[in-house]
């Protein structure tokens, strides 16, 4: 896995941000939200061409060969823009797959959704089990399943790949329409593609990517709120000159910066596979979830009436924050896991 220099990393992020500004502005997000699949194939193609779709795919399979650190930074930018695209699913899949499947993934030609269905995962997500050589049961709330050609399923000690036509995929009506979910029912056919050895790494990628998305979203809604507070005048003053608003903004900055620090630290611990890996991933999971929800919530309050309208983007961030806070286990779950990790050390 080749690392990037600081300059290369900055250049990559810069290109991504320009692409997102251009092709994933608020109007694009609303258009994609309103579409049936919630997916914009042209945007996906552009992301693949930029190299971020195959970001963590090894170079020999056509990817950029980068790791958790770069993924986290990319997801910050994606989260800031509310990018509705299967970027995180792809990164998780890349951690589970091998060979040709990886090349198709990196090229943007194949989309794989991932259902974590092991006992050690967050709870309440279905009842998938082995059925002969294949799978039975239903995986619930699987991101991007309705646009995927392949569903990857992780059990405790095995990874299966299921072709789209071998599963029954029921798209769910979702509150955050920038992240589509589906229930996936299995009817037998499934290909065993790995033992359990890669699952922990894939789970960490999921959590780090989501944490980055949350940190980026938190920071963006905060920036939007601060901009508004500088411009909006009431009582003859910018509302940001009132302590009520100013002090809320200061508190939110602490939350958003802490989320960023937590997400980046978790990425580093995972990339370097340190003993603090489990601890730092758990910390990022709840710190970033809570920060994003709080920044989005308070951001609406600080905007006042204008953010109570559908046309204002603030509620899109709150919707995203709420979906992110539940996707891979909620904050109470991760706080409990955090203490479990600390207990080992203390």
């Amino acid at each position, binding site marked *: 896995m080749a690392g990037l220099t600081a300059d290369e990393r900055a250049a990559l992020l810069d290109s991504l941000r320009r692409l997102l500004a251009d092709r994933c502005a608020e109007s694009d997000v609303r258009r994609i939200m309103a579409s049936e699949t919630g997916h914009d194939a042209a945007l996906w193609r552009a992301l693949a061409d930029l190299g971020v779709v195959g970001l963590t795919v090894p170079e020999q399979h056509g990817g950029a060969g980068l790791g958790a650190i770069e993924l986290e930074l990319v997801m910050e930018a994606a989260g800031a823009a509310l990018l509705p695209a299967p970027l995180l699913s792809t990164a998780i899949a890349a951690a589970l797959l091998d060979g040709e499947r990886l090349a198709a993934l990196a090229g943007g030609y194949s989309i794989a959704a991932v259902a974590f269905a092991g006992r050690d995962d967050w709870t309440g997500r279905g009842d998938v089990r082995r059925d002969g050589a294949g799978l039975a049961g239903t995986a619930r709330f699987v991101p991007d399943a309705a646009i995927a050609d392949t569903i990857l399923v992780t059990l405790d000690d095995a990874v299966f790949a299921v072709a789209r036509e071998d599963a029954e995929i029921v798209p769910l009506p979702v509150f955050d329409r920038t992240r589509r979910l589906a229930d996936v029912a299995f009817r037998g056919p499934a290909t065993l593609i790995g033992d359990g050895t890669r699952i922990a790494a894939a789970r960490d990628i999921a959590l780090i990517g989501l944490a980055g998305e949350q940190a980026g979203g938190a920071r963006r809604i905060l920036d939007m709120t601060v901009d508004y507070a500088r411009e909006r005048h009431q009582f003859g003053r910018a509302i940001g000159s009132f302590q009520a608003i100013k002090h809320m903004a200061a508190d939110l900055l602490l939350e958003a910066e802490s989320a960023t620090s937590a997400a980046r630290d978790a990425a580093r611990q995972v990339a370097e596979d340190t003993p603090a890996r489990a601890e730092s991933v758990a910390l990022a999971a709840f710190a970033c979830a809570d920060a994003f929800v709080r920044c989005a919530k308070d951001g609406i309050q600080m905007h006042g009436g204008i953010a109570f*309208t559908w046309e204002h983007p603030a509620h899109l961030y709150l919707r995203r924050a709420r979906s992110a806070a539940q996707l891979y286990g909620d904050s109470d779950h991760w706080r409990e896991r955090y203490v479990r990790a600390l207990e080992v050390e203390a």
Partner: protein
Amino acid sequence: MTDEQLKTEVEAWLAANWRGTATHKESFGRDPRAEWLAKVRDAGWAVPRWPSDFYGRGLADEQARIVERAFAAVGAPGAGQDRSNLWANTALAHATPAFRREIVPQLLAGEVGMCLLYSEPGAGSDLAAIRTRADKVDGGWRVSGQKVWTSGAQIADYGMLIARTDWDVPKHRGISFFFLPMKQPGVEVRPLRQITDEAHFNEVFIDNAFVPEDNLLGPLNGGWGVLQTALAYERSVMGDAARGPRSGAAGPKGDHALIGLAREAGKLDDPVIRQQLAQTIAWRVLNRLNTQRAKAELQQGTSSSIMSLGKLAMSRILHEEARVRTLLLGVESLLEGAEHPRAEDANFLTLNAYFTSIGGGTDQIQRNIIGERVLGLPKEPEVDRTIPFREVRAG
């Protein structure tokens, strides 16, 4: 008249007149509710605290409550409007004698639809910064501007309007208060889509609309004072105005709704959840106890500082209840739509909580009011209080 005599009279009148419904088409004419309300009005029960020569009976508050209780006991509407009818009370206090005679009886019978035309895109928390203008013409004023957060505007006959009539004095001193006729060219109503994906409110675009001279309430340029009395009515009911879940069918009601929901979700045994249930339910119960105590103290003639806390308290209650609902549902809260009523509720309540924490004065404004009017803390220096409005930066 003794309390007992009054009670006998109102009960006898209800026995003779109330048919158990005011909206049943068979028992009444074309607009049965208005017909009933007119009857209540003409019998002097609508506003018994008002003078006896103007629809009332000049009753003291305690006796007026006897009337209200008698109406409530049989479920009849229309009594106690001297406490609850914002429009009629505002008109009684501030309208010209002629306009008052015309409009008040209609308002008491609910024959005219009303809406509020206060807030503007550039004047939300700071209502005195309105830029809607009313320019004097023959026989009245011509009004132009834009209003927001207006509910009921489509069906309203009049809007209670604040507009600027003098731009060369400080902002509070150049505002006038009108009953603007809504059904005229130049008044356009557009629904405003909320974050809950509903449209309870409207934007109202006013372009050279006419308001007759007689529809000015209070003195010209004295509208700010009229507005204050009108706002006081609104604020006192805001603590109770919050809506419950949108779905009618999802889970138990009342203080214990969260307990039932936790039980349904299989989380009632979770000690972490139980702590949060306790705290959230407690806030709602405490607010009710506060309100009860405030009412009791008011009845004893003690002035109560508690009343003003209700809206702020309700903000926290609504946001926290929505948070706990989400916690109970977990990943199910990601869904929406009629097939997922619990999720629909959790998400709706999360968003709709802002109706209370922003609407009718944000929590931040509410804390200012409590700090200043209840605790007697000094106001902030106001940079725009004394300069001509033309020079104020707003919006």
